């Protein structure tokens, strides 16, 4: 089992790097959705020997929301806004990848030095979580399109979720579902806002949102 978990985590890390190097918005949406599915399946592997209804329900809800609902909501926003690519990111794709390498190194350095009291099942869990969060934050900062920023937010949320997975048994079901619901509504509201931004400005570049300042 451990080997499969490790493989999944490597895939999660690869999706992050792919997210940093991709300009097509639809592809970005698919990458984040794939990441969501990977993370949705992960708890099943963790609890492969003691599968309970709770774990399965949780995995199903998370996989469905992140793998089906979000991509559907966001690709609808892309279609309505009629944008395909992030053409002029604030930080270019090759440099983003290199920065991604640095972030990965940082995440590993920090992740391995955190004295975790519990025993995480693989040493890559925490670094992968930190890396995913950092990539999410970086995406929010380094891209112009509102949609890419939402994807960054989702990646960040995925990273935090990965961290939570290592200690999942401590979080009660109600809170888990509440978090999932919140993220869902957040994406929903952001999707509506993107629709309005597109209608108001004829594009979804957030650096044009700059009339409010002191």
């Amino acid at each position, binding site marked *: 089992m451990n080997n499969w978990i*490790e493989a999944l985590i*490597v895939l999660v890390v690869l999706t992050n790097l792919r997210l940093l190097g991709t300009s097509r918005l639809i592809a970005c949406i698919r990458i984040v959705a794939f990441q969501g599915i990977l993370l949705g399946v992960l708890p099943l592997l963790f609890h492969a020997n003691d599968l309970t209804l709770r774990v399965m329900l949780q995995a199903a809800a998370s996989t469905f929301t992140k793998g089906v609902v979000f991509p559907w909501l966001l690709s609808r926003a892309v279609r309505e806004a009629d944008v395909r690519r992030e053409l002029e990111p604030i930080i270019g794709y090759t440099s983003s*990848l290199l920065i991604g390498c640095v972030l*990965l190194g940082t995440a*590993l350095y920090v992740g391995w030095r955190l004295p975790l009291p519990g025993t995480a099942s693989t040493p890559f869990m925490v670094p992968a979580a930190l890396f995913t969060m950092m990539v999410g934050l970086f995406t929010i900062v380094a891209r112009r399109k509102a949609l890419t920023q939402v994807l960054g937010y989702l990646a960040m949320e995925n990273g935090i979720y990965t961290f939570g997975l290592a200690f999942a048994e401590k979080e009660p079901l109600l809170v888990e579902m509440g978090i999932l619901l919140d993220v869902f509504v957040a994406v929903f509201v952001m999707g509506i806002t993107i629709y309005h931004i597109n209608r108001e400005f004829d594009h979804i570049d957030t650096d044009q949102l700059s009339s409010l300042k002191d």
Partner: protein
Amino acid sequence: MISIIHILFAVLLAPLALGVINRTKAIFAGRRGQPLLQLYWDLFKLLRKGAVYSRTTTWVFSAGPLVSLAAVLTSLLVVPFGGVRALLAFPGDLLLLAYLLGLMRFFTVIAALDTGSSFEGMGASREVTFSALAEPALLLGLAAMGRRAGSLSLSGMYSGMMPSDLVHHGGPVLILVAAAFLVVFLAENARIPIDDPDTHLELTMIHEVMALDHGGPDFAFIQYAAALKMWVLGALLIGILVPMHTGLPPLDVVAALIGMFLLAAATGVIESTMARLRILRVPQLLVAASVLSMLALVLVLD
């Protein structure tokens, strides 16, 4: 003994691998294609001809092909093939391999610059840029392999591998390294999607443009050296993908040979199904390969 045989195989069969690639592409395009052994005839024909040297060139120009061929032949000594140890194996021979390939590139490039042609200068500049990006991918990948096997020699790191390693412990590492090596393989051998070996437009060439002014035996050396280089890098890749260790060295070599020709066929498929990347996108692909290698290295570090 068997190690020497494997070098003989490389020296004899390397041009055939190129023939396999061309035949695969021809089948995909619906043509009959050139004979499998076309490159051999080309080499013989070129060797029988005389060379023409421009008055502006110096000894560097004529030394380029020779040094290239010598370097790549030497590198064959340290590369293991299909579970068979290389003739030479010592800690750190992976650096020797990298530097021999670097030497080969260096001489190809300065021979190209020596002509003073602007096209060749452009090709040289691209070649250097891309291989500078491909080198970390190769070295980091080899470092990951070395760390995994606990050995600093190529033969050491390739000898302990089993086919089951790919799915069992450390599988992700090997797959990541293999993916990175595949990109390096395509980039260093000037294949699609990085470079198009069949292009006819100097502006878009990378590797081929550097050999434009060479003729006769010099050109034969360059072509032959290129075939051998593909064999060397291919051996690194199939060492991971087809790690047969049956205990019978001849059997292992046969398996690796089959692997090598399958790799050539696969390259043909890639070339037929993919389009060439825009030159601006090439660095991105190479950096991505380096990132894969780095990730693999990181995975074995803990």
